[in-house]
């Protein structure tokens, strides 16, 4: 089976800057795939190389198994939703959506039918004669999506299209995008710096940094099993990173004492880090006898975060971040100065060696 998109050792330089560094990637058919990374990590350049808007300095781009590295954009059968959306201001909704079919010289009667279908899919029926500036932000997203999808592209490329929207509308559009993707069954490649967007919608995510792909995996995988310190730090809201030395199988020596970990016997003698997500740390009465790592600490600060409480806990000079849902009243919430036990089971810790 061929992949929808395949990048083989792609590199791209802008002057001396290596925007994309030897990137290889396989995107499966009908997959919702995200390129996630901080700004300047090369994710947009990678997307533009797939679109043919940039030519790579090295490497091969394959669409549907065919080498398209030097095929111009307009012959690639892709669709793209731009960061600014780039809806043509001199055309109305209908004309915008019909544009791609016009370029392909599709008969007018078929254009009418397909635009009508598309408007239904993106739920914009009745707005076809509106001008772009008369639409709300969410409606514009839908027009941009419809315009790109109507040509039935082999792959749809999306370059941070939700960036300009309010939080509420953005949340709604995420679900909407996912729904449309299922409905039309097209491969989506989605570029974003927002991990929530990537987590919510993607089947798989590639995390990028400095032009290099750090890890590719399902949202669950990159969250639970980050491959290196960068991914561990970048994904998730916060993480507790204990630096130390792997002294004997299953034991890492850190500044707060020895920590029991799962596996990694081959790292004996090396510098490693143990990373624990804030929600995996048990606190106070939750720490029972069978918890592998137990330490005594003092609450430095209690921050009410709404759905949960965030504690900052000092353990021998290391400040743990702990997230706890609150089940009872105020009396159940620890306050600054309280002395508490903190702990986690060894499977809750992530061993990082890079």
């Amino acid at each position, binding site marked *: 089976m061929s992949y929808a998109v395949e990048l083989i050792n792609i590199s791209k330089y802008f002057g001396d800057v290596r925007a994309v560094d030897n990137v290889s990637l396989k995107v499966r058919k009908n997959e919702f795939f995200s390129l996630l990374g901080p700004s300047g990590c090369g994710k947009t350049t990678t997307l533009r190389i797939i679109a043919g808007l940039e030519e790579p300095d090295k490497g091969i781009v394959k669409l549907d198994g065919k080498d398209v590295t030097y095929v111009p954009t307009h012959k690639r059968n892709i*669709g*793209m939703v731009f960061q600014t959306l*780039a809806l043509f*201001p001199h055309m109305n909704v209908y004309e915008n959506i019909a544009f791609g079919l016009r370029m392909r010289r599709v008969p007018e009667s078929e254009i009418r039918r397909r635009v009508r279908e598309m408007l239904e899919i993106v739920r914009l029926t009745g707005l076809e004669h509106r001008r772009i500036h008369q639409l709300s932000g969410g409606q514009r997203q839908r027009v941009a999506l419809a315009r790109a999808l109507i040509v039935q592209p082999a792959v749809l490329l999306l370059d941070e299209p939700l960036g300009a929207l309010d939080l509420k509308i953005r949340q709604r559009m995420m679900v909407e995008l996912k729904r449309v993707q299922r409905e039309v069954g097209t491969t989506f490649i989605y570029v974003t710096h927002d991990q929530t967007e990537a987590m919510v919608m993607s089947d798989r995510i590639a995390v990028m940094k400095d032009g290099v792909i750090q890890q590719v995996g399902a949202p669950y995988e990159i969250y639970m099993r980050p491959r290196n310190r960068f991914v561990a730090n970048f994904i998730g809201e916060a993480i507790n990173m204990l630096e130390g030395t792997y002294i004997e199988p299953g034991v890492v020596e850190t500044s707060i004492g020895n920590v029991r970990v799962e596996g990694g016997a081959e790292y004996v003698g090396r510098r490693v880090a143990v990373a624990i997500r804030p929600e995996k740390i048990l606190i106070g009465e939750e720490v029972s006898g069978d918890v592998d790592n137990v330490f005594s600490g003092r609450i430095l600060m209690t921050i009410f975060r709404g759905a949960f409480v965030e504690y900052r806990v000092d353990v021998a000079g290391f400040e743990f971040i702990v997230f706890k849902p609150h089940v009872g009243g105020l009396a159940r919430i620890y306050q600054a100065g309280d002395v508490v036990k903190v702990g986690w089971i060894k499977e809750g810790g992530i061993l990082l060696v890079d």
Partner: protein
Amino acid sequence: MKLFDKILKAYTYTVLALIYLPIVILIIFSFNESRSKVVFTGFTLENYYSLIGNYRVWDSFYNSIWTGAVVTVVSVVLAILMAYGVSRYEFSGKTLIDSIMLIPIIIPEIVEALTLLVFLVIIGIELSPYTVIIGHVAFDISFAYVVVKARMAGYDPQFEEAARTLGADEIRAFTKVTLPILAPGIAAAALIAFLESYDDFIKTFFTRPPGFMTLPVYIWNMASRRGFPLDLNALATFVVAISLIFAYIRNRIERRVY
């Protein structure tokens, strides 16, 4: 502070009134029966009848319009090429070229006119309406360029990229998307180019063949006599009316910005 603001306001209105005053007086006295410049002795349309019957005025007006139209088309096309090249491509000497484009605006017209005249005569090109057009295009490219480039600066290249991802080749992306989006800017540039040509006196005066008159040249011929020909006042009314129409069109175009 309040008093100061009031004085400033009164001052502004006074200056505005004074700017309009001479023109208004000129128009009012085009309806005057006698040759007095102060006392309105009686209403007449006599000056307008003599204006309407004056074929040389209409001939000059016609010349102004058609040369202006040719100048506009040529200079706007050249200006679009230039502005597009400068906005879209990176190359060495770009800032230099950008400043070179401003030179024809800054150089005094009388010097442009005399150098062009000397040049035309030296290389043996006979003066004709086309030499007038050539001269006008040489400064109009710059005026049109400044306007078109300003609009292009606000033009997002993603529009063109979007067209390409939708299956348009570069040429169709340019004609179907870029050009229509830039249309208001191009219209504004065309209007300015036309007016600079339509209104030009000095360069036309130097590079025209004998007997070829545009409206400004005709006005000069009448105004540089010692007297005060009253049908010139009538012509002024006509010219002012045309100018107001242009000002109105320009105002409408300015509002059509995407």
